[in-house]
């Protein structure tokens, strides 16, 4: 692509991104420095256009950030989100890696069907899947009934409205996000490598850990990020499956925004969340997303 066509394409695409990706974040950053007021909109302006005052007075309020760091509620919400998301990511990967490996080992004629089965939940509404999962875990749901019928437990397990419930919900929601990249990176590995390892005297399990896993590591890392990041900010799962004492930042933000209508504080919390999430991505960005892009 050369010349004018190239310039026009770049400008069009950039205009779109600037309007719908960049601008919203700038607005959030701006409002996070405002003060909450009762009115429409429910915050103060950053620039005060006083009685013909030129230049306008700049009113920066760092109070929201001070509140975030000072208030145990927010710190706990951040830490709680990170902790639950990390546990959920680990569990999801622990399921996804062997499962994806088994998919690559399946006979060739099964593999397209298995792939469709792995992709299908990805396309299904996460809300509906969480709802279905709640149905399974409920006090009189199938899981408890089977366990009781087997005589393993006497009284129904209380899984819903606990942290375990949240983790299980996150794992169930985001397992497809982990499965696909792990499968994609495993399937790219030349089977001859495993055969070479076996030929050189390496047992299958050892060759999985020494050969397959290191080669699939970028895909596994990508899968981990794809689970971890949305899980940190997840709203539906903690809202529907968590207990009243569960603190996750997504839910806290929602409450702050819709119930308390403190938009500046919610904005500041969002800015912190973005910083929290973007920093690991920036570090891993080159390895995960920009690889294999058209060379200049």
């Amino acid at each position, binding site marked *: 692509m050369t010349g004018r066509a190239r310039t026009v394409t770049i400008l069009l*695409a*950039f205009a779109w991104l600037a309007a719908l990706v960049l601008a919203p974040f700038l607005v959030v950053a701006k409002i996070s420095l405002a003060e909450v007021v009762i009115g429409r909109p429910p915050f103060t302006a950053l620039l005060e256009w006083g009685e013909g005052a030129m230049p306008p007075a700049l009113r920066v309020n760092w109070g929201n950030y001070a509140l975030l760091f000072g208030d145990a509620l927010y710190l706990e919400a951040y830490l709680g989100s990170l902790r639950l998301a990390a546990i959920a990511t680990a569990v999801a990967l622990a399921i996804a890696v062997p499962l994806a490996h088994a998919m690559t080992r399946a006979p060739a004629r099964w593999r397209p069907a298995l792939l469709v089965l792995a992709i299908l939940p990805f396309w299904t509404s996460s809300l509906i899947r969480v709802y279905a999962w709640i*149905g399974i875990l409920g006090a009189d749901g199938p899981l408890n009934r089977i366990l009781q019928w087997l005589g393993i437990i006497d009284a129904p397990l209380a899984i819903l409205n606990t942290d375990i419930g949240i983790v299980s919900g996150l794992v169930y929601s985001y397992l497809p996000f982990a499965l696909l990249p792990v499968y994609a990176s495993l399937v790219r590995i030349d089977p001859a490598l495993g055969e070479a390892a076996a030929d050189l005297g390496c047992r299958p399990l050892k060759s999985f850990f020494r050969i397959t896993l290191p080669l699939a590591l970028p895909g596994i890392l990508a899968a981990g990020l794809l689970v971890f990041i949305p899980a940190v900010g997840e709203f539906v799962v903690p809202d529907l499956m968590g207990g009243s004492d569960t603190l996750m930042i997504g839910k806290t933000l929602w409450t702050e925004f819709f119930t308390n209508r403190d938009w500046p504080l919610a904005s500041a919390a969002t800015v912190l969340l973005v910083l929290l999430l973007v920093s690991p991505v920036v570090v891993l960005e080159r390895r995960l997303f920009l690889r*294999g892009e*058209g060379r200049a």
Partner: protein
Amino acid sequence: MRRAGILPTLLLLAGFALLYLPIVALVVYSFNDGRLVSVWSGWSLRWYRALWDNRQMLDSAAVTLKAGFVSATLALVAGTLAAIVLARAGRFAGRSGFAGLVYLPLVMPEIVLGLSLLLLFVELDLDRGFATLVLGHAGFSAAFVAVVVHSRLVAVDRSIEEAAMDLGAPPLKTFLWITAPMIAPSMVAAWLLAFTLSLDDLVIASFVTGPGATTLPMRVYSQVRLGVTPEINAISTLFVAAVALVILTASLVNKGLIPGRSNGDSA
């Protein structure tokens, strides 16, 4: 070909059971006659009838489908443009910043996207409603379109486009006649992905939409909060069926309808 061992087969069965059993249970119980979701009292379509009489649900379904259609189309155009820039424009000042903006919505929780888009619309004094809903959905699903189209675009031999220009076709014509037909399957897939993303979305819609444009997931969510009801099972079943239909169509398009790709030989 290798035969599947016992352990991998068990793993596959357990893994896919975990993914699908909840959905299967949900579908089955949507045909349950009783009000209690956990007690089976015979087959019935009563919850589907109840759904059919629920005007609010039907209105929301219409809003959701319309928003999905328009936003997916917008996202397809914008996302394809971004993919072309990333795959074909070479180096330019700010390229890595550009790539970052393209992929940012992929790595942001929905709640962040929803909140920031809402604040933008408030800042611009736009009335919240169908238009803001569409813009919000298009804004974040364009990122997914870009990823899907980009991955296909980099696989297309660049000299094919050069050949078209060499034979006298200007850039726009080259895109429409040569590039677009070659990446058409990925564009169809990307549109479908954007469409289902819009259909599924609860969080962003809750922020950016306004009165009169309540989406189906928002209605479902407010009902689910009140507890598990068979009516939700019914609507979820319809949802799952619709998605399965879309996926089936997409794989047919990818497999059979694009000539030259059916027999899997490399052209």
